[in-house]
C-alpha cells in the first residue's frame, strides 16, 4: 500500500542531535498517529492528531513533539535525541466511523522508521 509512507526508513544519529521523522498519507484520513515499538513493551502511542493543527499526547510523549500543518503530513520531532529513544517508530492513519468507545477505528500502518541513537 502506497497510501502511507514514512521517511527516513533508517537513521543513525548521536545523542543530543535533533531528529525529525515524517509521515505522509494520500488517503485524506483525519487521524494520524505515532507509535514506538520496543521489545518487552510492544506498541506504545507517542502522539496523535485528529486534524490539522489538532494534536494530543499519548502514553509516552515526553521528549517528543509533533506537528501537523497539512492533512497529509504528520511530523515527529525529537528535539534532543537520547539513547532511550532508539526504537522503531510507526506512523498510522485512520478515519474512525462513529465515536469512541464503540466506533470502528481501523488503523493503517506505515512500514516503520528504525532510529538508532548512539
Amino acid at each position: 500500500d502506497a497510501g502511507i509512507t514514512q521517511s527516513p526508513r533508517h537513521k543513525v544519529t548521536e545523542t543530543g542531535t535533533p531528529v525529525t521523522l515524517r509521515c505522509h498519507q494520500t488517503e485524506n484520513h483525519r487521524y494520524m498517529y505515532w507509535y514506538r515499538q520496543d521489545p518487552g513493551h510492544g506498541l506504545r502511542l507517542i502522539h496523535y492528531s485528529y486534524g490539522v493543527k489538532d494534536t494530543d499526547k499519548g502514553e509516552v510523549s515526553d521528549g517528543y513533539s509533533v506537528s501537523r500543518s497539512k492533512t497529509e503530513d504528520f511530523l515527529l520531532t525529537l528535539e534532543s535525541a537520547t539513547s532511550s529513544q532508539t526504537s522503531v517508530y510507526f506512523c498510522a492513519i485512520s478515519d474512525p466511523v462513529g465515536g469512541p468507545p464503540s466506533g470502528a477505528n481501523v488503523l493503517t500502518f506505515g512500514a516503520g522508521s528504525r532510529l538508532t541513537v548512539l
Partner: protein
Amino acid sequence: SQELEQSPQSLIVQEGKNLTINCTSSKTLYGLYWYKQKYGEGLIFLMMLQKGGEEKSHEKITAKLDEKKQQSSLHITASQPSHAGIYLCGADINSKLTFGKGITLSVRP
C-alpha cells in the same frame, strides 16, 4: 500496567497444527482489533470484533470476542509457514487505541 495482556508470549508449532492465542483486557471491551506483523514490517489489519459473542473468519484464522470475560481469542487452523509473525491485539481504551505486547508465532515446516 498493561491494559491488554496477550498470551502466550510466544509460540512454536509444527506446520499443520491448530493453535489459539488470547488477548485479555483489564477494562470493558467495546471493540477489539487483531493485527499481524512480519519481522521488519508494519502491522497489517486482520479483523475487528465489536459485539460480545461475535466471531469472524478470514481464510484459516478465526477470532472471537467474549465480552463478559473481556477477552478475545484468535484461532488458526492447520497452520502454515505464512502464518508466522507477531500477532497484536488492540482496543479503544480511554478513547485511545492501545495495543498488547504481541505474540510471536513460529511455524516449523
